[in-house]
């Protein structure tokens, strides 16, 4: 079919017969992309940035204040006690670590599956992942009580002859989360190198030149550098793909491997992973919807991206809903009296039943609106539903964690958990830290992967200009030359 079709075959997207929505709108050029993204870092920040940054820093200060108070006074300033030993701290840990799942999913799994739309989302999603994991790490770190003893978690030979209990999922958790964080940082940084070099080359001040130059590691953009770079990126993507699934599975083992009714469930690992991706994408949308408007990134972060993410939210939200209903069904269908009692109390008679209703509405019912294309195209609806999901995922963790241990096997041990003001302020403070880090990221690093977005432009295709000429009738029938690839096969 080679020569016969060349005069019709224009751009590959057209050659396929199905017009695909372009990934970058308005036929933007390479230089426009560089200017727009680097401009965010090089120009003064819009007023909106300061309106968000100052309260965020203050809230982060609240976090530091509560941590100082906590350490200097002791963990008794938290409201958790017997029987509810795992209160907001662990709820918040699971909440934040769950949010940290979208980044790696976008950067690794979508990379391996060649979903090219990931290119304009992955940088910010990965940054968000790292900051979420930082926020998550604070809670178990301080939950241990004497946080300077946290090194006991590492298998280091010591004079106390303390050795880790490798049978404990809490220890697996430490390894899973720290591995995830390390790999995510490396992956994110490797992705940044070509863009850091761009910023270095555009820098006007000495300080910027030196700093961006230092972190760009001498990147020149030569062929050999790109070859090595792309191989490294591919390998890291392969390395982090299992982590997307493993981290939240291991987090779910903290609960699933215990015998507490409401925790001891085999459905937990897939249910947690789906929930994590669900919550992670909601947080990406929450951050990026305002961001793309403030910085004018609509041509790169298009409605197509929002549509895709809304669909993922719909899918994962429905999986989560299936898990909720299956948990209820099994507690009814199974013969375990304690299990059925735990769920009876959870949804009908217990003190925390309203948390369950909030969770169910936010996570299962609200995203169903994304079945409608109109809803996926309405930014207000997308933003509001994304925030319902953010809240719903917090409620889910609360429903799972304190609710289950507040009603244990022995009614004599039942008890209600009231979070203290310190816990509440600390949770609020992690939002401050999260936003501070994210806003600093916007301020100092390219929010969209410049090199990667350029790679998905039609102009990046080596034969782009040939097709263009054919289209304009400036190229004779001798094209393509013998040995050159058939344009309709070139992607």
């Amino acid at each position: 079919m080679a020569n016969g079709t060349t005069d019709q075959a224009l751009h590959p997207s057209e050659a396929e017969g199905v017009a695909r929505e372009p990934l970058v709108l308005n036929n933007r050029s390479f230089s426009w992309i560089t200017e727009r993204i680097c401009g965010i870092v090089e120009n003064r920040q819009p007023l909106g940035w300061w309106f968000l940054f100052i309260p965020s820093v203050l809230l982060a200060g609240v976090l530091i204040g509560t941590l100082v108070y906590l350490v200097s006074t002791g963990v008794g300033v938290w409201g958790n006690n017997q029987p509810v030993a795992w209160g907001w701290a662990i709820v918040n840990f699971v909440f934040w670590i769950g949010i940290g799942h979208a980044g790696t999913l976008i950067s690794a799994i979508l990379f391996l599956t060649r979903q090219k739309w990931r290119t304009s989302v992955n940088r910010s999603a990965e940054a968000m992942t790292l900051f979420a994991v930082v926020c998550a790490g604070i809670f178990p770190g301080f939950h241990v009580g004497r946080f300077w003893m946290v090194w006991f978690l590492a298998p280091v030979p010591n004079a106390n002859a303390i050795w880790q209990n490798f049978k404990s999922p809490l220890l697996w958790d430490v390894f899973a989360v720290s591995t995830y964080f390390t790999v995510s940082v490396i992956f994110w940084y490797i992705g940044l190198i070509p863009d850091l070099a761009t910023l270095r080359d555009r820098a006007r001040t000495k300080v910027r030149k030196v700093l961006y130059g230092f972190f760009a590691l001498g990147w020149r953009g030569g062929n050999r550098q790109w070859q090595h770079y792309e191989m490294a990126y591919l390998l890291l993507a392969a390395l982090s793909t299992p982590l997307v699934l493993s981290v939240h599975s291991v987090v779910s083992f903290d609960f699933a491997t215990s015998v507490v009714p409401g925790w001891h469930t085999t459905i937990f690992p897939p249910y947690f992973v789906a929930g994590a991706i669900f919550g992670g994408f909601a947080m990406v949308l929450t951050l990026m919807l305002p961001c793309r408007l403030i910085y004018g990134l609509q041509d790169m972060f298009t409605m197509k991206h929002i549509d895709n993410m809304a669909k993922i939210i719909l899918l994962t939200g429905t999986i989560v809903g299936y898990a909720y209903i299956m948990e209820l069904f099994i507690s009814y269908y199974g013969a375990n009296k304690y299990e059925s009692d735990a769920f009876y109390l959870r949804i009908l008679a217990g003190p925390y039943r309203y948390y369950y209703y909030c969770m169910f509405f936010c996570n299962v019912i609200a995203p169903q609106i994304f079945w409608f294309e109109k809803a996926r195209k309405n930014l207000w609806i997308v933003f509001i539903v994304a925030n319902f999901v953010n809240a719903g995922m917090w409620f889910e963790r609360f429903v799972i964690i304190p609710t289950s241990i507040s009603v244990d096997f022995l009614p004599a041990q039942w008890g209600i958990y009231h979070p203290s003001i310190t816990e509440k302020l600390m949770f609020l403070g992690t939002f401050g830290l999260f936003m501070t880090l994210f806003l600093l990221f916007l301020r100092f690093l390219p929010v969209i992967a410049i090199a990667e977005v350029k790679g998905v432009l039609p102009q990046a295709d080596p034969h782009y200009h040939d097709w263009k000429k054919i289209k304009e009738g400036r190229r004779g029938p001798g094209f393509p030359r013998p040995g050159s690839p058939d344009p309709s096969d070139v992607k």
Partner: protein
Amino acid sequence: MGNIFPRWLNFLPLQVLIALGGVGTLIVAVIWYSFTPKYTRVGYEPQQPIPFDHSLHAGQLGMDCRYCHSNVEESSHSNIPNAQVCWNCHGPGKVKSDSPKLAVLRQAMDTNSDGYTGEPIRWVQIHETPDYAYFNHSAHVNRGVSCVECHGKVNEMAVVSHQKPLSMGFCLDCHRNPESRLRPIDEITNLDWTAHDLDRDEFYAYLAGKTGKSADELKAEGPEKIDQEALGAYLKDAWNIHPPQDCAACHR
């Protein structure tokens, strides 16, 4: 555009890597060596208000530890003797009662002395268990763990010093392997004793009273040659010793 960094900087990453490796090794080595009780506690030798010579009293004169530390078999705490105990021998007209080294004792006890205050002697504590660790002396000495295991050969010390690390690892070494430390209860305060000193006949005769079996029966059952491991294993079995290794054993 020109070079931002000079050429020699190309080797900086390598240099930094090597330096970090060196510094890392150094930090690990320093912590490994000096952040353990083996380093921080062993060798602690404070000056006491009275230069009481254990090597003279417990060593040369052969006084039993329990003459002064009299509650050790009944109490979780091994007491430091009060001044009256010293006064028993060093009172007026008795041993070295005029020695200038005993001025602090006379201040505490002798109403006729110049600086009499009646204040107790302020001995400096050397071996200290942290508040979060529960240790019971009587539980150990009544089950064949000698003073020497934790305090070293005090009978040879002119000035008592901290000889064993007393770290948690040190406790666990013995709790995991008590055979290596058990001895007959009569020999608890005999700090120079070793299992080789044990007379086989005497040992089984002694055990006969404890276990309700005859000495000959025990001798037939018992090991041929008595070394520390064999003796320890035997005592552990006979006294049903199961040292706890869970956290709550000591951290109550």
